[in-house]
């Protein structure tokens, strides 16, 4: 994937020409605008136009007119304490410790924001965030978010289905994959001053996965605008895949004919696959995925209730139940295709069915 890189200046160009005082003034105006837009009945198109307050500790703007989650798109039970969901993040652009993003992400400027659309599409271009959000009304999705490190959270996201957005740009018949990139700007993202990852952070989905009704673009969580550390202003949420697939602060969506590079796969191909579907049956080479540590539920780890069944039947939908991505039978039928043996057998799948020993040298 050698498309042109998006330089930070392309998305923050206005800021570059402003001096510090002007930036502050503009920030004040944006905040005011955001407050006004927060009045009941405000247009969804303004949803993420307001920049998020520093670190997300201040009250973020409430999103209005959000359609509540359908039964098919929600996990039952308690959601994770927002404090935990906003203070425990993997977002290496702001540092590699879990607490770094909450401390450092205030430097990210989320407005104005645009996303470059390119590759195998009829309508490429640089699209302002507001136009992207015009694709569909805001709705809520309550998904279990499972990290490859074996912790999990249940988060009520606000956003729009990815499929609705992608369809608007007219993918050509050659578009077999969708690739995403995060902003690169070491000034706003201090973690990028070190090459822990070959920036930009890259992720991707096969087109059928991207068009799946569960794949979601979030601009908010817990009814409010996304805090910067959670990937403001717009991020992906793919509930049946490990968290690292759910790329944050997206500035580019590229339609590709071949499988794109993805950051963790680049970094450690033997440990992180392209597909990376959540599967308690298949261990990470260095740790088990059979147990999950749900956030805040208790200080002790929960064994996935279905692990035993899963290993007996090799029924991959069990994986979804175990990680609680969706409980509704209707929804379960769908990810089955994606989670099925076909995807897992691909050599790139997070940990194919190969036994552990083969992967160690």
């Amino acid at each position, binding site marked *: 994937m050698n498309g042109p890189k998006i330089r930070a200046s392309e998305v923050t160009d206005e800021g570059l020409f402003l001096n510090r005082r002007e930036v502050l003034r503009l920030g004040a105006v944006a905040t005011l605008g955001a407050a006004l837009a927060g009045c009941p009945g405000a247009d969804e198109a303004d949803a993420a136009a307001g920049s998020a307050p520093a670190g997300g500790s201040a009250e973020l703007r409430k999103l209005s007119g959000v359609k509540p989650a359908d039964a098919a798109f929600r996990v039952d039970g308690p959601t*994770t304490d927002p*404090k935990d969901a906003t203070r425990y993040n993997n977002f290496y652009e702001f540092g590699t410790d879990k607490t770094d993003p909450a401390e450092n992400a205030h430097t990210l400027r989320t407005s104005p924001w645009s996303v470059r659309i390119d590759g195998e599409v009829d309508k490429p271009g640089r699209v302002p965030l507001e136009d992207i959000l015009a694709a569909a009304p805001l709705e809520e999705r309550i998904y279990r978010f499972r990290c490859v490190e074996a*912790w999990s959270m249940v988060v009520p996201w606000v956003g729009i289905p990815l499929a609705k957005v992608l369809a608007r740009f007219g993918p050509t018949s050659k578009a077999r994959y969708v690739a995403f990139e995060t902003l690169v700007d070491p000034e706003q993202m201090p973690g990028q001053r070190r090459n822990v990852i070959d920036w930009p952070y890259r992720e991707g989905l096969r087109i059928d996965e991207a068009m799946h009704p569960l794949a979601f673009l979030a601009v908010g969580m817990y009814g409010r605008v996304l805090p910067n550390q959670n990937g403001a202003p717009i991020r992906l949420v793919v509930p049946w895949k490990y968290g690292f697939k759910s790329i944050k602060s997206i500035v580019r969506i590229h339609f590709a004919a071949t499988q794109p590079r993805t950051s963790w796969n680049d970094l450690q191909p033997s440990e992180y696959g392209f597909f990376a579907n959540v599967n308690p049956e298949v261990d990470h080479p260095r740790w*088990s995925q059979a147990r999950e540590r749900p956030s*805040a539920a208790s200080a*002790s780890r929960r064994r996935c209730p279905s692990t035993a069944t899963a290993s007996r039947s090799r029924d991959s939908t069990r994986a979804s139940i175990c990680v609680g991505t969706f409980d509704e039978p209707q929804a379960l039928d769908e990810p089955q295709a994606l989670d099925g043996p076909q995807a897992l057998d691909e050599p790139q799948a997070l940990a194919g069915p190969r036994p552990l020993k083969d992967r160690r040298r």
Partner: protein
Amino acid sequence: MRGHRATDRLLRLGAIAVACGPALALAGRYAIEGLGADPIKDWTHTTGRWALRFLLISLAVTPIRRFAGLRGIAPLRRTFGLAAFAYALAHLLIWSVLDLGLEPAALVEDVTERPYVMAGMAAFAILATLAATSTRAAMKRLGARWVSLHRAVYAAALLALLHYFWQIKADLLPAWIHAAILTLLFAARLLWRFRRPASGTA
């Protein structure tokens, strides 16, 4: 003489206070901020890091004593070494009891299939042996062998470092900082030998 003993005791109490610092800080953070998103991982990492750090601090006592001429600090080697063992023990208990719930199958799987756990186990076995033989009585009983036995502390540090590197996902920098410190400590020891070929060990 009495003055000496008083400073000795003060020094040791100070070292014990320092050793308790990270545990108290952890407890304080939970009192203020609550459990957080992934407390088991947090406790595992904090105790693991401090086990390694106190091991390095313990190894730094002798070079500092020699190069700075601070003869009185020798007992701190033992205090900090025991602190390293205490944190390693907490680390092991958090992993085995809270993380794996003492489930035999899970324990066996982790120990037999994850090389980083094996390295940690080996490091812990050494630390436990050294802690058990850290008393005056053991010193007397073992005589000259005590010194060679306790040189295994370097192997423990190397194994702990290996264990640290082996479980990292992406960011190697913090581990390299620990590795650099251990290298410096080795270098200081070699330098001393080189300067004093006749003076033996310890």
